[in-house]
């Protein structure tokens, strides 16, 4: 009796030391990789794609989706409660460094890699992006010959609609004036921004570039030749619990996802009301990443 207990204690000490002595790449795959996502359908589809390829390769995965805003989930990632999270380069950089001035995709990615806390890595970013963009209706664009934000400089009385925080963002009214010489009146249209644009309450609206409604309603996205907007590519944020094999699998998913793919996935979610799992699986199969 006594001997068995001593043996058990000795065995458990040995086990603990053994595990602790292992390099991160050799963490046993029985420890699940916890994957998180924002409470945003598009983000959940990407997270689901990560989960599916990892499961297919024999990893154990735990899904913690719909975690709300960055203020809530970033501390959980930093604390190591979540191992893998699909993020957006620009928006996440802005979270860690509110004064960041980088706007080009590569610069933003480099700045983000430096800004991330100890223990977290930005894996390779995807060509797919979901970032702020200024959109006008087709009629407004043709009536005023608009293609780029710079074309707005000749117009007066432009109202810009967007979420309340746009008023203070560097790419908001202040940035428009400083970079393009465009003066706008800001109207906080909140969650009804696209509806307000279509109804003519505002002339121009800030809509995420992967929003299916840009296609569906035939909105015209004005080009941004001077780089007012922060590039925001999809980027997986991984903790040390995600080993090299798992990282290679996630990198393949990121590389395969084009900007058009992301819009198409969002359209399926909005139009066909399919679950993230179904959309992600069918896309992975079509890309040859899953059978």
């Amino acid at each position, binding site marked *: 009796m006594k001997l068995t207990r001593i043996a058990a204690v000795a065995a458990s000490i040995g086990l603990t030391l053994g595990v602790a002595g292992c390099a991160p790449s050799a963490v046993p795959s029985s420890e699940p990789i916890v994957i998180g996502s924002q409470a945003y359908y598009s983000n959940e589809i990407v997270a689901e794609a990560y989960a599916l390829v990892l499961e297919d390769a024999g990893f154990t995965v735990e899904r913690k989706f719909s975690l709300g805003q960055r203020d809530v989930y970033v501390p959980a990632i930093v604390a190591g409660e979540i191992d893998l999270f699909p993020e957006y380069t620009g928006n996440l950089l802005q979270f860690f460094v*509110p004064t960041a001035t980088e706007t080009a995709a590569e610069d933003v990615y480099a700045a983000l890699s430096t800004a991330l806390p100890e223990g977290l890595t930005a894996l390779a970013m995807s060509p797919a992006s979901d970032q702020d963009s200024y959109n006008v209706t087709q009629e407004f664009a043709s009536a005023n010959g608009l293609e780029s934000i710079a074309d707005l400089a000749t117009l007066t009385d432009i109202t810009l609609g967007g979420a309340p*925080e746009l008023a203070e963002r560097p790419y908001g009214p202040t940035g428009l004036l400083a970079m393009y010489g465009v003066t706008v009146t800001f109207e*906080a*249209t909140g969650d*009804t921004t696209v509806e*307000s644009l279509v*109804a003519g309450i505002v002339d121009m609206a800030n809509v995420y570039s992967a929003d299916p409604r840009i296609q569906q309603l035939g909105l015209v996205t004005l080009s941004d030749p001077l780089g007012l907007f922060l590039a925001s590519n999809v980027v997986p944020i991984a903790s040390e619990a995600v080993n090299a094999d798992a990282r290679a699998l996630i990198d393949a998913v990121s590389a395969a996802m084009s900007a058009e793919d992301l819009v198409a996935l969002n359209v399926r979610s909005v139009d066909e009301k399919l679950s993230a799992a179904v959309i992600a699986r069918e896309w992975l199969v079509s890309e040859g990443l899953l059978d």
Partner: protein
Amino acid sequence: MFDFTALGAWFSDPENWAGRYGLWNLVAEHLTLTLLAIALASIVAVPIGVAIGHYGRGEFFVVGLGSFSRAIPTMGLLFALVLATGVQLRELSVVLALSAIALPPLLAGAYSGVTTIPAWIRDSATAQGMTTWQLVRHVELPLAAASIIGGFRIAYIQVVSTVVLAPLVGLGGVGFGIIQGLALRNFPQVTASSLVIIMITVAGDRVIGLVQRFAGARLGQSTPLEKS
């Protein structure tokens, strides 16, 4: 946790008080939406509440509406109305959604004010030859005034704290500072806006409370009448 210096700096920055989304404008918009919603609800609720109290029929309606209103998700109602009527009419939708919250307390205040008037008072009024209208106008309304105003007090508190949601559908109000501040992680602004909302809630409640006491003392009883 609570940074008083940052809070003071936020309040003393004139930038935060001026302009379309400055504090003055937002408070004015907040109060306008609140008062419009209560006014609209009272036009419907007070006459119906008085009538139910007077005739003693339809009490189930007052109780039912009171319970039913607690089951309505206000935010859902707000979005549903805005999407149904279109964004051009969003002011109207928001006022309608808010009046739905104001309706039950106004109705209950008017109803209970009239129904608790002792039978002997009404009987003596009728015995003196008063018509129904005279009874309502000169006896029931003055005696029920304190209770009716009490309904306004509850309605005000509920509506003024719900207007905070209006910025979600593109209107202003002090909730703007909270919603914008959360997104920008500008916590002094969030705290300041919350304090302003608390202040206008308490101040409005006190003002209506004073009116209630004045009306009770002047028109009827400041304490409820004993039934006999």
